[in-house]
């Protein structure tokens, strides 16, 4: 696992050495700030619940932009070759990259803490719900990052990785949204697979084990698949 730390460090540095980190953080702040102010004005409630619901759309678009380069760039420039011929396991590489992208995701959402300070200034927000929302936001980030990483691992082209990642995340969001309020096994299955339903529970201030299990196990499954994909060059 020592190499995971080394990879993590390099990847995180690479983000901040390229414009990617600054661009995604800036874009995220513009949109989340817009939704925050609009929803605050509309509802007059000291809560992040409504603005964070919209935030999920922005995150579905920005997270694949964060993850697109992780494997695709290495595949394209060939740096995967020296990397994989160093004494590191495939898992260490994948996990290090995952952690780096997840860390950047968390850095990206960190400035929203300012909104909490603002809410505390204008009123009396429900801190429990806010903490639960952030737990949900971070767990959801892990899932989004692992999906983006998976897409990045199967292509050499970063743009393709970003586009497919965005589409996949939006589908995951939409199937949850569309089946809300509907009955039947199909809808309840879709609702379970979709991210929206699980995420909504957190914004209400509930940290339900079922939702935690959903995010953690889904993320773990995807990372497992990514390791297999990286390994697959061995039997292709």
């Amino acid at each position, binding site marked *: 696992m020592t190499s995971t730390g*080394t990879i993590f460090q390099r990847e995180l540095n690479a983000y901040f050495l*390229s414009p990617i980190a600054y661009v995604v953080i800036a874009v995220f702040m513009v949109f989340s700030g817009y939704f925050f102010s609009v929803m605050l004005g509309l509802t007059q409630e000291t809560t992040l619940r409504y603005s964070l619901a919209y935030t999920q759309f922005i995150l579905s678009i920005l997270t694949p932009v964060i993850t697109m380069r992780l494997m695709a760039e290495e595949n394209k420039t060939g*740096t995967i070759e020296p990397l*994989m011929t160093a004494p590191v396991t495939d898992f260490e590489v994948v996990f290090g990259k995952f952690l780096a992208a997840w860390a950047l995701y968390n850095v990206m959402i960190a400035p929203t803490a300012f909104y909490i300070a603002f809410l505390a200034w204008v009123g009396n927000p429900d801190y429990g719900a806010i903490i639960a929302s952030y737990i949900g936001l971070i767990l959801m980030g892990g899932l989004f990052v692992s999906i983006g990483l998976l897409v990045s691992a199967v292509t050499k082209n970063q743009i393709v990785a970003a586009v497919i990642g965005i589409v996949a995340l939006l589908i995951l969001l939409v199937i949850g949204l569309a089946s809300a309020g509907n009955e039947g096994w199909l809808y309840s299955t879709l609702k379970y697979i979709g991210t929206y339903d699980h995420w909504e529970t957190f914004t209400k201030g509930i940290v339900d084990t079922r939702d935690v299990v959903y995010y953690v196990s889904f993320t773990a499954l995807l990372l497992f698949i990514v390791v297999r994909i990286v390994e697959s060059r061995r039997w292709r």
Partner: protein
Amino acid sequence: MIKVEHLAKRYADVYAVNDISFEVHQGEIVGLLGPNGAGKTTTMRILTCYMPATSGSANVAGYDVFRESINVRKQIGYLPENVPLYPEMRVREYLLFRAKLKKLPSRERKSKIDECIEKCSITEVQNQIIGTLSKGYRQRVGLADTLVHDPKILILDEPTIGLDPNQIRQVRQLIKELGAKHTILLSTHILPEVEMLCERVIIINKGKIVAMDTPTNLAIQLRAGNNLVLEVRGNGEKIKNALTNIKSVKKVVWQDKGEISNFTVEAEKGADVREDVFSNIVKNNGIIREMKQASITLEEIFHQITMREQEVTT
């Protein structure tokens, strides 16, 4: 140090490497020579554990490349073709990253990196961003990376490709120096390079080994006979007859240029006819203006071997 047995690698229906076996002993510099697409890179990728073989086995530094790949990877320094590097990193930072990945203990890192930077003469660019470096420097950064954990074996894939003549000379000099301490397997399609650097050559073509020997032995093997090239002043006719009568001379080609004649004397394998040729010419009042042995270059060997293969297959 490297032992390859009946190695084969198949991509879909095509064999990139087909049943090759060879050995590289400790301290040797061995050249893997072949035209583009012969299977050099594939062989190296298998040896460096980047991809597994379809069949056969390879043993590097006492470890099996498939079952004990992490141990193998600790023992080798691999320079891939075209030297992929992270363009956004600084040279020193990159080497530190690689040293960590290769599990170099933290107290040795600084001194080891300094040593490699000096050895590969990249001191003046050590704080530059890799993306801004010229091809020659990038190549040497790659070499520094292969050395950083002091591996027993260096595997270099086309180490001088894309460099200008001066840089080629520098890199070759460096490889030669490294040969004193490391076992080296390098691939190339540039023949003088092999002649200069390698103690042994493995020529591969279309995934198969077609020849394996020292550069000089290969030349001897392939030489149909010893050829002498002469330029003589004197009576050409007389001298030709005298030369033809020498015991182990097989063939004499005479080119009459008036007062001066050119001869090509082909002797039997292993026979040294130089002294007989000299005395015979002197006896016939000829004056030798030039006499030299025509040695076959590796280039001709390579051409002959790869062409012969083609004749067999077509």
